């Protein structure tokens, strides 16, 4: 009988800590508009999707944004910064504590709830997009990288447009 039967293994705490730190940095990148840093948080062959919960639950493949690989992420960032005509807005991510589903030392599977608030210049803040991340991380040399992030959002109606990543 161990001395502390309900003790949490240190390795579990460690993956929890890593993912929470990662998510904090991720939200910070997007909220600052540091899109190159955002791209660098993904693997070369990543998958990034923003998908209505309605489609996700029904097993339908259509996304609001579906990017495969860092090349497409770069194309999106070029769109944001150079081609998409839109009213600018601030984003503020509030990301809840991650739930670690598995960690085999190579990949971590995890989920976390998020809410994103939008503030347009001269206007009030609005609840913009609410959902959860479904993630697969891989351990890289410099820390975790996202191999897959699905942003499954509850918000049935997008407030006009969704320009920046979530």
């Amino acid at each position, binding site marked *: 009988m161990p001395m502390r039967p309900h003790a949490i293994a240190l390795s579990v705490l460690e993956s929890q800590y890593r993912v929470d730190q990662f998510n904090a940095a991720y939200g910070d990148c997007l909220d600052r508009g540091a899109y190159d840093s955002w791209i660098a948080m993904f693997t070369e062959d990543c998958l990034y999707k*923003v998908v*209505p919960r*309605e*489609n996700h639950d*029904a097993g*339908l*493949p*259509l*996304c*609001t*944004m*579906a*990017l*495969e*690989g*860092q*090349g*497409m992420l*770069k*194309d999106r960032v*070029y*769109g944001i910064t*150079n*081609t*998409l*005509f*839109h*009213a600018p807005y601030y984003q503020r991510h509030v990301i809840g504590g991650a739930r670690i589903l598995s960690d085999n030392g190579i990949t971590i599977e995890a989920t976390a709830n998020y809410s994103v608030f939008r503030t347009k210049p001269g206007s009030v803040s609005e609840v913009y997009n609410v959902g959860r991340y479904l993630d697969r991380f891989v351990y890289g040399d410099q820390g975790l990288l996202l191999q897959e992030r699905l942003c499954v959002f509850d918000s*049935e*109606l*997008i*407030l*006009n*447009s*969704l*320009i920046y990543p979530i």
Partner: protein
Amino acid sequence: MNFAPTSLSAETLPRWADEGSSRIPFWAYTDPMVYRREIERFFHGGGHWCYVALEAELPKAGDYKLSYVGERQVIVVRDRDQSIHVVENRCAHRGVRFCQKPRGTARSFVCPYHQWTYKLNGDLAGLPFRQGVKKDDGEVQGGMPPDFDLKQHGLTKLKVATYNGLVFATFDHDAPGFEDYIGPDVMPWLNRIFDGRKLTILGTNRQRIPGNWKLMMENIKDPYHPGLLHTWFVTFGLWRADQQSRMVMDSHGRHAVMISQRNAGGEAKAVTEGVTSFKKDMTLNDTRLLDVMPEYWWKGPTVTMITLFPSVIIQQQVNSLSTRHIVPSGPDAFDFVWTHFGFEEDDETMTRRRLRQANLFGPAGFVSADDGEVIEFSQDGFRQKGAEGATVCELDGRGIAPTSHMVTETLIRGMYGYWRKVMEI
């Protein structure tokens, strides 16, 4: 020119002061009374067919989905004989919008308030205590009056038209046949996509756009803007003024098709010089986003944008297909519901291609996000000017006629010509 409303009393609507339809007064987008009349005459009556669903969304008997005709929520349901009914989601008893699940499968519809039960076709099947409640001593308490007739208390049924996978409905049971409503000029373009092949549903995107609903119809009747507002269209030759194109409209000017054929894009003085959205050196890091594969049924055009007044836009832009349903919500907002689809005959590669190209469309689309934004800013401009302002739609003159080019605003003038007639404004 004076576009000021003649009176703001509840009885009188603003008058359109001048002839023609090339100057659209701002009050047409902002006046609540004008909006009420639009809803009555275009969406809730007046012989107009409104889009409600694709048949493929309801594959099995009993499958239903909630949709809208104008501001009224309706249930679109497939019956056991495979026919499709559209009934209003409002209990005949106390007016409850009883069906709350957006999609599902039902054997009947039951209003939870007093358990009034309806067949899938909307007929009232029964209700509790209709004959009263019999006590042990034989006394009958309550019950509906003896002349209560089930047949008089069904759900409001709409007239339904299904056409090769499309489902339309109207509250007006005297409406013309669907094909007559669309007319011989536009029907061939509908047939090109909806030729009877089975559709597959890829999914839905929904956005709320804070602008008048007509601005979205206009956006897809406006071939002038795509090669100017949308970098992707001008740079990659998906839509721009040096392409072979045609503008088609029905005899009333209400429905239209913008048709064009893709070119190689790149620099071409007449259409790119001085155009800030044109990006000469832009290339994609991942060309799969625009991996266009011609399909046998295109027969030439690479893009057909169909506006079926007042409720839906049908999009074919290269390999991406969608219906875009307009659900008006007051004079200054509408919900815009995109249903992307493919065909059962598509292989996996084609489905993936359609999904990748979907990145151009919807509320986050490389192209379409611009449109929602610009509609919001249009409404902002109308609001700040007030009733005296008007838009100028005079590219290619002030008349209304089909054209063999895209340097024109004729389709917008066509729509407002029809609008004025029906609105009696």
